[in-house]
Structures are given as C-alpha cells and as structure tokens.
C-alpha cells in the first residue's frame, strides 16, 4: 500500500477528528475572506468593488461555507476525537464509516468551490429559495453544484452522526452510565440524533430541486403547478433543527470548560442535559417562524410564535446553570475561560434578539433586515465560534501535547471580542434603519454610511484576532509548553491518558463511579459518588 493510500485509509478516530477540524479551519479562512470582501464592498454607500452578481455569489458561498464546511464539520471533528476518549472507549463503533464520512465531506467542499471555476458560483443565498433557485431564474450551473455538494455534505453528516450515536450508546466503559456521561458527550449524542432526523429532509428537498433544474420536474415551479412555499417548509424543517445542531455541541464545550476553570461541578447536571433534549424536540416544531412574513395567516403563525418563545426557556435555563457553576467557585482566567465567559454574554444577546423575532409583529418589521444578520452572527459567532475557541484552548493540549500560548491567547481574545462586537452590534441599528440584508450596496441615507463603515472596520479587527489565533496554533505546535496528561487538573476521562493519546487511547481506564472519575481518584476523602450520588447504582 502506498503512503498516500495508507494515509487516506487511516481510521483512528483522533486522526479523523483532527482532519475534520483542520479542513474546517481551512474553509473557515476561505469563508472569512469572503466575509471581508463583502464588508469591503459595503464599507461606503454606492461602492463598485464587486458586480452585483459576484456579490451575490460571495455571500451565498460565505453562508454555505460557514454552516456546512466550518461549523458542522468542526463540531463533528471534536465529537469524533473527544467522545470515545470521554467515555473511556478505545475507538469509534464504525471507524471506517467515520473515515468515509470525512472524505465525503471533503468531496462536498471541493465540489462547492469548483463552482467558482465555472464562473458561476451559486448565488441564491444559503437557503436558496425557490423559484429564484429554479433554472428559469438561475440558468447557470452554480446551483447544481450547490445542490449536489450539499447532498454529499448531508450524507456525510448522517454517516458521522450514526457513528457517534452508536459509539456513545454502546462503547461506554463500565460505570459510565447515561447519568454520568460528560455533558459534551450528552450534547454530541443529542446533536447526532438531530442530524439523523433532519438531514434526510434536506437531502430529499435537494433531490426535488435538482429534479426541477435538470429533469424539468415542477416541485417548486408555480408556473407549472408547483409550490414555491413547499421549499421553504421543507428547508426550515431541516433548517431550524440545524440551528441547534450548530449550537448544542458548543453548549457541551461550555459545560466542560466552565466547571473545570471554576473548580466546581456543573450546577444542575440533570437540568442541563434534560433541557438539551427539550430543545431538540421543540426545534422540530418551530420552522414556520422563518416564514412569518409569508401570508400564512396569524392563527397558524401564532402556534409557531408560541413554540419559538417556549424554546427560549430551556436555553435560558442553561445560561443560569453555567452562571451558578461559576458562583462560589475559584475562577481561573485562562484564555479558554475568557472565551467561555464571553460566550455567555454574547450568546445571551443573540438569544434575546431571537426571542424578539419570535414575537411575530417584530419579525414583520425586522426579518430579512440587517437586524437578523446581527442576530445570526451573535448566535453563531458569539455563540458557537466563541465556544469553539474555548474548546480549542481547553483541548489543544490533549490533542497535540502542547499548550497554546496564553499571552497570544489574550491578544486573540480581546481582538476577537472587540472586533466581533464592533462588526455586528451596529448591524442591529442598520436593520432598525431599514437596511435589508443581502444587498450589494445601499443608498446614502442618514446613518447607513457611518454604521456600515464601523462594521467593516470591526471586521478588520476581527480578522487580526483570527490571525493571532492562527499564529498561536502554529507557533504552539512547535514551541508550546509541554502539556502533560492533565494540565488543567480536569476531571473527565480524556485527561487520564497521554497527550496526545496513543492509538488505543488508554492503557487502563480509571474506575467510573461518578461524573468526575478523576476528581474521585484525586480526592479519595470526598469522592463525588459519596457526596452527590447520581442514582446510577453501583456502576463499577
């Protein structure tokens, strides 16, 4: 077997996880550059850096990249790397399937980007509403690339999700009951189930769109009896669970980081886990809140307003549980913890603007405006990406054996926090001033120029922060302080082995009698299973 064949056929879950994370980082840089191009074009009114057609391609690629090629795969990568370690398993249930899912993911990403070479990248936005996405209005090949790429990505996501579900369900070390499962693993488990029950809807609607475009079917073509709104229903039945697919694993990371750096167990473990299940179930009943501005009638829409508001409760609960975890603790301000704290505040802002959108009349004014752009970025950047940075600073030592530099880390943190808020907070005001989203330029009305310029300058600062992060990663790979097995004095099983762990993960898995096996090991005088029994029975 050639070296290349050996390399692509490696099935170690840590290798696959790292490759997922690395590919997501590369696409993150691509998506980030696209964002900078967009912000440059919008810096001043009536700029002509890009043609309208190119602008539409770039924002479509930015959204599609960040969702399908960055956030989903990076979270999957962390799941594949960390879940087996955290449950004391030697590998995944189906390691070769996991490798298959990664290469499918790569194919999807490459296919999407090849569309640029045709001169006609997809240009209908990341949710490609019909009939704009039909051949009559998008005659080029871009949307065909988009649909086929997303089909591959959906298949990849389903495969890796099945691997994770089966791994977590069947390969837990003795004593690792579901009541003792680390919360990151819990969230990964719930997320994976959501992927299995949502991506097929996306795949089916993509097949319908492709049939319309290539085989002259008419699912979404109103001129031939099709229903354009059908696409919206299908897409958001997938798309709203997707939002939680992109945030629940981030919740899981926060639920690992905050306890360790507050030196206290998570406050209210059962509620944090149960509220995630509640979110997962509710997320299938809120899709039409993306369609409040469609004439569907207030009675029908009120049901979705109610379910959307309801979902704020299990989400809000977690914020309070995390805060209560810090309360009375002994807080260590590592870069990881800084990002976790920033996550709490930024995500709260994004969550609250989300509640505002659940109030239909507010949505009737602000949907499809820059207010909604601000909202999604507070949730996905201030939420997911900040949590990911917390997770990276926390687990990088385990994955590489080296610590990330804390000084560069602080620089990274402050640049990102300042840049992020400067970029996106002002976009709330742009929306309130009447600026629609997805416009390549805007008239020189009072306030629009100054606010857009602020946003663009903020994006520049944010970019510097990302550069600081990249420098930190590559410098620390060579020069980072050696990590040892457990640099944070943490409590879950991944810290009970070498950094990075050997191929088979553990020489011997410690006994698991509570949620914090390493705490029990180090505190034989006050083990968790004595102080706070979890009703799992005597597992070991």
């Amino acid at each position, binding site marked *: 077997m050639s070296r290349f064949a050996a390399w692509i056929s490696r099935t170690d879950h840590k290798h696959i996880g790292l490759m997922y994370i690395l590919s997501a980082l590369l696409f993150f840089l691509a998506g980030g550059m696209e964002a900078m191009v967009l912000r440059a074009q919008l810096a001043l009114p009536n700029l002509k850096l890009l*043609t*309208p057609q190119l602008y*539409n391609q770039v924002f479509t690629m930015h959204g599609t990249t960040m969702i399908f090629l960055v956030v989903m795969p990076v979270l999957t990568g962390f799941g594949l790397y960390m879940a087996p370690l955290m449950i004391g398993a030697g590998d995944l249930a189906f390691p070769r399937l996991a490798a298959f899912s990664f290469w499918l993911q790569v194919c999807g990403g490459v296919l999407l980007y090849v569309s640029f070479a045709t001169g006609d990248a997809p240009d209908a*936005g990341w949710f490609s*509403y019909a009939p*704009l996405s039909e051949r009559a*209005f998008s005659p080029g090949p871009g949307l065909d690339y988009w649909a086929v790429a997303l089909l591959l990505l959906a298949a990849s996501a389903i495969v890796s999700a099945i691997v994770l579900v089966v791994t977590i369900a069947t390969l837990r070390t003795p004593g690792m009951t579901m009541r003792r499962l680390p919360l990151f693993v819990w969230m990964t488990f719930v997320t994976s189930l959501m992927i299995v029950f949502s991506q097929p809807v996306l795949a089916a609607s993509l097949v319908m769109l492709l049939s319309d475009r290539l085989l002259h079917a008419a699912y979404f073509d*109103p*001129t031939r009896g099709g229903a*354009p709104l059908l696409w919206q229903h299908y897409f958001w039945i997938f798309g709203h669970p997707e939002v939680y697919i992109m945030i629940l694993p981030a919740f899981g990371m926060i639920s690992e980081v905050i306890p360790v750096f*507050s*030196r*206290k*167990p*998570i*406050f*209210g473990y059962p*509620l944090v886990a149960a509220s995630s299940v509640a979110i997962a179930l509710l997320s299938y009943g809120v899709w039409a809140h993306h*369609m409040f*501005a469609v*004439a569907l009638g*207030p009675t029908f829409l*009120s049901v979705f*307003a109610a379910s959307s*508001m309801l979902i704020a*409760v299990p989400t*809000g*609960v977690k*914020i*309070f*549980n995390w*805060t*209560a975890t810090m*309360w*009375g*603790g*002994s807080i260590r301000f590592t870069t990881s913890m800084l990002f976790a*704290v920033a996550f709490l*505040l930024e995500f*709260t802002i994004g969550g609250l603007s989300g*509640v*505002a959108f*659940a*109030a*239909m*009349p*507010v949505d*009737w*004014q602000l*949907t*499809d405006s820059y207010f909604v752009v601000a909202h999604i970025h507070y949730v996905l950047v201030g939420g997911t990406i900040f949590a990911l940075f917390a997770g990276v600073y926390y687990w990088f030592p385990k994955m590489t054996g080296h610590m990330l530099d804390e000084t560069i880390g602080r620089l990274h943190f402050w640049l990102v926090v300042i840049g992020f808020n400067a970029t996106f907070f002002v976009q709330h005001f742009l929306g*309130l*001033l*009447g600026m*629609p*989203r997805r*416009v390549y330029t*805007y*008239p020189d009305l009072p306030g629009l120029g100054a606010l857009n310029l602020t946003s663009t300058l903020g994006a520049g600062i944010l970019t510097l922060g990302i550069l600081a992060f990249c420098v930190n990663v590559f410098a620390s790979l060579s020069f980072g302080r050696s990590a040892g097995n457990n640099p944070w004095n943490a409590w879950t099983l991944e810290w009970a082995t070498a950094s990075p762990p050997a191929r088979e993960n553990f020489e011997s898995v410690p006994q698991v009698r509570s949620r914090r096996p390493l705490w029990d090991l180090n505190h034989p005088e006050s083990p968790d299973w004595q*102080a706070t029994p979890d009703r799992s029975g005597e597992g070991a």
Partner: protein
Amino acid sequence: MFPFSPHSPQARAIASLFTATLVLAAIVFVTVSGLVSYSLLRYRARGNPNEPPQIAGSKKLEMIWTVVPLMLVIALFIITVRTAAFIDAPLRPGQTPDLVITGHQWWWEARYPNGAITASEIHIPYGRRLLAQIESADVIHDFWVPQLARKMDAVPGLAGYIWLEADAIGAYQGACAEFCGAQHAWMRLVVIAETEESFSAWLKRQSEPAQAPTGVEATTGARLFQQMKCGDCHAISGTAAAGSRTGAAGPSGPDLTHVASRRYLGSGISPNTPPNLAQWITDPQSAKPGNRMSNPNLSSQEAQALLAYLETLQ
C-alpha cells in the same frame, strides 16, 4: 426611521411591541451580566490553590429560573397575539383591494382600481387606511416600508394583504426585503402620502392615456418606440405598446405611460433626470447592472428622439 419614527397606527403597534421586548431583553441581559460579573469579581481564584465547596445544584433555584422565564414568555406571547391581531385586522367580506402591488425582478408595479399603473412610486392619501394586495410576477419578493406597515412577502401564486396607511404627509422609503436576484439592492420604492385632493388629482392624471407628442423630435421618438419593439415589455396606454407582465415567461418592464412624472429611475438607483433617462435607453446595463433590459443599440439622434418622447410622458 423605524422604530424611532413610525408613521401609521400599524407601525406604531410594532414599535411599541419592539420597545416592550427590548425592555424585557434589557432586564434579562442586565440580570445575567450582573450575575456573571459579580461571580467573576467575587470568585476569582487569586492564586488560592484550594478547591472551593463542591456544590452540584439546587432544585429550588433551578425551579425559579425555569418558571420565571416561562412566565415572561407567556406574557410576551399574549401581547404578541394582541398586536398581531391589530396589525392584521381582518378584511370585510368581499372587500377588494385599494391597490395591487406586484413585485418584479427588480421593480414594483402598483395598480389602482381606476386603471392607473405606476412603478416603484406609490401614492396614498394620508390618514386613510388602504388595503394593499401584495403579489409577485416571478420570484419571491418582500414589500417593506418600515415607517408605515408590516413586511409582506410577495409570493408567486399567493396573494398577501396589508393595511397601508400614513398619518402624515411625506415620502416614505421602502425596499424589497427578500433576496430576489442580481438587483435586489435596487428594488426600492417610495410611498408618497399626500392630501386627498392632490392624491385624487394624481390618480386621475395617472389613469389617463398618454398624449400624442407634438414636436418633431418627440414624434420621431414615439415612432421609434413602436419600431424598436420597446412595447413588448413596456406598456404605454393610448398607444400600441401593450407591455408584458409575466416575469417567468420573459422580461417585463414598468409601464411608461407617465414615466416622466416619477421621482426615480430603476427603482431608486438614480433620480429621474433627462441625462439619467438617456443612460437607460443607451446603455441600460451600465444604468443598473444585471437588469432585464437589453441594449437597444440606438444612434445618438435616435436616443435624442426617444428621450424627447419619454420626457413628454408626464
């Protein structure tokens, strides 16, 4: 603009609901950030190597922060439904719309029951509530005039209705809010609210057919308009130019019967001045890149004549 200067009862209702939501959100955010900040300041490790008391939860506290937010969202839901019912007040049985607004790639058409047709400039009498029907000729658009009304998606095959009203004289900016293709950015519109007298004068003038031009140049222009088949897409009432309204089957352009009376060209991309109109007829793709009009390839005399004709269409 919204929410700071709503100019209709509907927009004011949304602004009040937004303000209520904002206050609620501010209270929650101040509570959370207060608790977080206090924890960070009070419980910072400061080199203390000892582990703090290991507290794993409190059913009572968790009950509080589950039930209190639940109460808050129930309250929010109640005012949401009441506001929604006010804004989307039901139509009378059999009520017909006072104007029909149709989204096209990338302009707005407004038709009035008396036959007046206009593009991307809608006139209404101030202080009177009109029923506007919103529809689309091609892809999905969204009618949005923030100071006056709720958004309404323009979906092909599905008519939506909104109450359109302004409580003061003025020109209110609007835009398409749903991404609809290359020139989504310049699918803007203006709603002009005026007195009943000037509104009915405007409406009467707009419903009249175009006057036959008198000057030599304008007459040549009128003949050119027919010869060049401009009328396949653009209607001019009182002439053979019938125009086309279907977007999916082929291009469609704004009705030009009273084009010279309008404030803007290209749905807001430029003011309606003779040089800007000349740019449209000589190089439409530079006037609005990506729009559906192909270059008619006019000589400069032809362009002059056509311009002279179009400027007579008051």
